[in-house]
């Protein structure tokens, strides 16, 4: 994992490394799809597939036996199921943030990682979406959560935050998918035009919808893309806010917290960036050509975002504790005392270390620029964010109002196999994505390269600003 970091480091590093031109960009990124994968891909994919089968098996057993196979119980009605749901949804948020918010903020460094993180969003939301659907006692009746006209004359109950979840998560998934696919259309056109095999041409041709790069099309495309980004931004903020409302609108001490929406959104971004780093580092190793586009600059930026959101989250923890005491409400006070000193205090302090303490290393460029450390910190944050949901959801439930209704909670083997199974499913999907779709938005990279090196004179430059570039050497060969 140790990688020799060459200067320049951090944000001094370029956004695109090496000698590049339109052709090399297209070839390096598109080539991954059009050529056979590196050998390591097969065992890794197989591993992901095997783990996914564990998940499938768990789901079958769950449907046959009921959710009693999980560790949930009377006071703690939600355990791993909703913890994992919130965790995965949170991870998904970084993708949308990178692709939408950073686009609106005109952050150029987003270009290399947006496609990748959008895929992550979609797969994370798939993993997340599985849990609310399966956590019900009678999953075969989940369609009752949708307002379908029916013969019972019964409708969903729209005052329930759980129903808001249904709409928020399904909208989020749909819009993320639309956004992702919109971005993929021109790249599929590139692949269509570069593919050698007939089948690849047909598939890519179909998926590209006949994209031909017309200027009029680009104009509407850019407009639509920007609008989608603009829509995704409030959406992504609303989704985790709605998820947090599951808790905030309830009356459980430890759930009934007004600070939850912003705190959850920050936590989501925090976890999401950690996951992007967790994925980017190994993918750069599997596909070395990606190092040209996902550079140390990107790693540094992501580390900084993590640090910033981590501080917001940590502020949230402080506020939770502060208001619990400040409220002078014995239940709230007990809730935080129980987190501090109760039976699950271990998880609380582990959470503080994982999410509060260790990420402070990122203040130091030494740690930000060392992929080994960066990777380590991001893994710690992934764990910490899971613990945070455990503390909020299960530890709050296990001791709330009436001592006679108190209890304990621990996940069973099936909780773990479901959780780990979704991780493998996620990994499998990421490998499938890497194999069959361009991991970086090719057309946007071309655009970025053009802006960085080719069109320095400005993008409405009427005079062809021909900036000689070392990358141009190869273009002559094609002529």
């Amino acid at each position, binding site marked *: 994992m140790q990688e020799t970091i060459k200067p320049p480091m951090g944000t001094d590093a370029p956004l695109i490394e090496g000698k590049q031109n339109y052709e090399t960009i297209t070839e390096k990124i598109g080539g991954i799809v059009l050529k056979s994968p590196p050998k390591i891909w097969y065992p890794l994919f197989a591993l992901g597939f095997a783990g996914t089968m564990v998940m499938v098996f768990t789901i079958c057993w769950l449907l046959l*036996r009921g*959710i009693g196979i999980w560790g949930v119980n009377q006071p703690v009605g*939600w355990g791993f199921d909703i913890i994992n749901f919130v965790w995965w949804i949170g991870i998904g948020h970084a993708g949308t943030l990178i692709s939408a918010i950073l686009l609106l903020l005109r952050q150029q460094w987003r270009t290399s990682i947006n496609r990748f993180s959008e895929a992550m969003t979609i797969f994370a939301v798939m993993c997340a979406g599985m849990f609310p659907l399966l956590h019900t006692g*009678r999953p075969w009746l989940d369609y009752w959560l949708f307002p379908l006209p029916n013969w019972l004359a019964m409708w*969903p109950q729209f005052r329930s935050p759980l*129903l808001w979840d249904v709409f928020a998560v399904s909208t989020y998934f749909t819009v993320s998918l639309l956004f992702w696919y919109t971005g993929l259309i021109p790249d599929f056109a590139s692949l269509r035009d570069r593919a050698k095999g007939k089948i690849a041409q047909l598939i890519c041709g179909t998926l590209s919808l006949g994209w031909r790069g017309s200027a009029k099309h680009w104009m509407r495309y850019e407009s639509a893309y920007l609008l989608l980004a603009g829509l995704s931004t409030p959406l992504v903020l609303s989704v985790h806010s709605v998820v947090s409302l599951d808790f905030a609108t309830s009356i459980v001490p430890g759930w009934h917290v007004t600070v939850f929406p912003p705190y959850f959104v920050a936590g989501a971004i925090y976890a999401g960036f950690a996951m992007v780093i967790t994925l980017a580092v190994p993918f750069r190793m599997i596909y070395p050509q990606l190092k040209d586009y996902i550079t140390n600059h990107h790693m540094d930026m992501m580390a900084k975002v993590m640090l910033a959101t981590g501080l917001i989250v940590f502020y949230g923890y402080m506020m939770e504790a502060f208001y619990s005491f400040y409220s002078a409400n014995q239940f709230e006070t007990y809730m935080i005392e129980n987190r501090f000193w109760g039976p699950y205090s271990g998880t609380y302090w582990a959470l503080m270390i994982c999410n509060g303490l260790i990420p402070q290393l990122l203040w130091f460029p030494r740690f930000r620029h060392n992929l080994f450390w960066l990777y380590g910190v991001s893994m710690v944050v992934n764990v910490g964010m899971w613990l945070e949901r455990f503390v909020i959801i299960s530890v709050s439930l296990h001791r709330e*109002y*009436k*001592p006679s*209704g108190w209890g304990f909670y621990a996940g069973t083997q099936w909780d773990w196999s479901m959780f780990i199974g979704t991780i493998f499913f996620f990994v499998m999907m990421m490998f499938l994505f890497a194999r069959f779709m361009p991991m970086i938005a090719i057309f946007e990279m071309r655009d970025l390269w053009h802006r960085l090196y080719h069109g320095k004179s400005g993008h409405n430059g009427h005079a062809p600003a021909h900036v000689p570039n070392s990358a141009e050497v190869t273009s002559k060969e094609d002529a």
Partner: protein
Amino acid sequence: MENQQERMDLSQIREKLDKAKEGGLWRSIGELAERPEFEEYLHQEFPRQSASLGDFVNRRQFFKLMGASLALAGLTACHRKPQGKIVPFVKAPEDMIPGQAVFYASTIIKNGGFGVGILAETHEGRPTKIEGNELHAASLGSSDAMMQAEILNLYDPDRSQAILKFGRIDTWKVFWEEAFTEAGRQKILKGAGLRILTPNTTSPTFIRQMQAFLKEFPQAKWYQYDPVNRDNLYEGARMAFGSPLMPVYDFAQAQTIVSLDSDFLYEGPAAIHSSRKFSEARRLREGMERMNRLYVAETMPSVTGSIADHRLRAKPSQIASLGVALAQAMGVPVNGASAGELSEAQRKWVEAAAQDLKASGSDGLVTVGDQQPAALHAIACAINAFLQSRVTRYIQPAEFNPGNNLNGIKALARDIQENTVEMLLILGGNPVYNAPADLKFEELIPKVKLTAHLSRYTDETSALCVWHLPESHPFETWGDARAFDGSVSLLQPLIGQLYPDTRSALEVITTLAGVSKLPYDLVKETWAGRNIDKLVHDGVVPNTAFPSVSVSVPESVSVPSGSLPSGSDTEIAFLPDPLIGDGSNANNTWLQEIPKPTTKVCWDNVAYMSLDMAARLGVKLDLTKQSYPLMEVKVGDRTLVVPAFPLPGHADGAITLHLGYGRTRGGQNGSGAGFNAYTLRGSDSMSMASGAELSVTRQMYPVACTEAHHVFDFGTGLKSPTDYIDSSNARPIMKVGSFTDYKKDPHLPDHHHHAMEPMSMYAERNYKTYDNPDNHKYAWAMVIDPQVCTGCNACVAACQAENNISVVGKDQVIRQREMHWIRVDRYYKGPADDPELNFLPVTCMQCEKAPCEVVCPVAATVHSEEGLNQMVYNRCVGTRYCSNNCPYKVRRFNFYKYADYDTPVLKLLRNPNVTVRGRGVMEKCTYCVQRINHARIEAKKENRRIREGEIVTACQQACPAQAIAFGDMNDPNSKVSQWRKQPQHFVMLEELNVTPRTTYLARVRNYHPELAPEEHHAGDH
């Protein structure tokens, strides 16, 4: 007439049962009268597992699963309701209306042979629910958990159905041939080799038949034995008054009650009666000036101890010392015994009790537990006589041959040892399991040539007898029994024999005697001269209670040396299990799963001990896994390994073991549950043993305890949970106080509760009026009075029976998935080793602003116009969000398919008016909405309003202490409105502003000024 009609139904049921074996017909019995019966439509393809639900998959399950998973989607989609059938009567019984329940009176036989009158609700000939019989002295309309669960004993799938010889199925014909041959031989010997062992009985008909039988066989002997018996009580009375007499107390009038290890509100034949009468005196009324005072000295916290004003924990051997000290303090001379050294607390307790007793004079009484030595009973008799207590009277015992259980079983053992027994009939009972261990009955029984054991199960004794004879359930037979006061009630069959080969003891003995009369005729004969139809209808035989026997005040009590226990550092108290009794209810899953009243343990017996003792022994718990260390208990050469269980309030220097567990042949649920304390119990240590050696092992054992979670928070920095029970301290959960405080300010203000103006975005809902002329809405509400609640769990059992509540098994209880809709919360107050116990029954609170409803995404739980928090099982998808958001945690979830859909006989048990919930569905109390609907429909048909008291919820109906009021709070005259107006009325967690419809009164103790606990919450705010 009854008889005629009964048989008609029964033949129908029988017929169906026979056909059930061919399959498919069980559906139709439900639809016998076009009834949408039990089954919620549920996915039948999902396999049902037995009660223990393991989570691990084995290889076979794996393949099944893989196959099933392929077909899963298709199967669930293609579910089709099978064609239902309607099977009408061939000849309809005259006054049976299908769909309308009919109530029949009968009697339940409790330990010792005492009867408690019941009314059984029957649906199309199958009893489904037991209620108390108001006309019966021992019931007064109430019941207890064991009575409620008796209905499950009737339908127990493990009941013995076949007559067995050496374990192989045989016939009655062969048995009778053998029996008559041997009896013929015995007749010549005048029955010298014939012994009959039965439990104690009070049945006049049975006693008459036995006596007739014994006339034929004058040398034969009839012994009675119950492992939990009243030998000491009668012996004590004999010591004091010269003859065995039975004390009857008037707790309604008593002003000072001193109980020396007597759990009179829970144990014994008069428990329900006592509980009712005690609660009448105890209930707070506005302007109340005087309240009775209850002193209890006991080893382990009992139901009675929990409601005591002054509970003193004492080792079993110390109880007698306290009795002696009390007698001496009262000036009652006791010869041959001294109180010995008393601790400061004991001395103060004795002094206060003596002072109060003297002050109360004839309104004072002392009662002693059956397990205490006879001499202590004698002392109590003397004190009561000395007080000229008018609240204590003595009557003839109702049992036949009272007080000779131990003598009887010893004599039988001796007879067998001496080889004088050639034919032994054991009609009920289970001596191999529960006879004193030193008699070694398991070795004795095989020595007898012809042994026959009549019992409802093929139990430990059946296994060793030549013949096992299946016994009818009392609900299937005719008979009679006396209550504690001697009054007689009748048994009538509520259902035909479920299994054709079962017989009652009465039938067996009459057949053997050659009397060819049916049990009904025998009962009729016994009560000749009375209107038998009316007796059967009422269930009770009037004017049969025994008159009081006048006793003289003994000049002094002489205690023979050695008759009071000497005691040791480590003693064992043997008590019957509060729910499964002496073990005869071991296979009753309801009773197994209902938490024991004071300890909240279920499915097991454990060694209860004080916290100090647990610390001394090095007992370390793993509460997250609910594991307790196993401990070896050694008394003499007998040992038992049992989990060590620290219990606040238990006496130091002793452990308490409950009898009745550790069955080896106790049915699929009774076998293997718990540990057999009988193995430690010899004929010299029937109720207590001293000199036990305890050694805690490192092996852990999971114990299902529904309220262990918060009791011990050892080693954490948290406040002790005992701080959270006191309303004035932290959590506004219970209002507790002293009678002195109450007299000062009946509102018992709590210092932390600040009334808030509730704010709402929304207008208040109208729960008052309808549009129509009769526009007064019903607003159902419940008030529970913890002041009189003893925590006996009758309500829990009644609710379980009424609402088809599933049993989940020990493993699931450990995983905190018990299903009871009403639970009795136990809160401690005071020091951890010796706290006061407070009980608070909690049902669904039916909050008007219910937090559960808002969060349900499918509107499966919404409010009705009458203010009920409705739960629609068929709509529920099972998100469990409602339960998370319920501050009272009263919702219950079917994590698995807990309901038994498959066992045919259990289908007869179900209340047809309540849905049997399937897997993945939330459920909870709905104030017995089926009863509300029934009453509403009946009232509407008659064009009238529902009358006050017309709707009685199951819990309310069962409650012996009448601690629950239910009714329309819009009616200012209803009981519930009256209770809500009480000054000490309070709302649990009121500050949440969920406006629950179930509210509470305060719990007030009447402390002796010298003993009142120091108020320790003065500086808390």
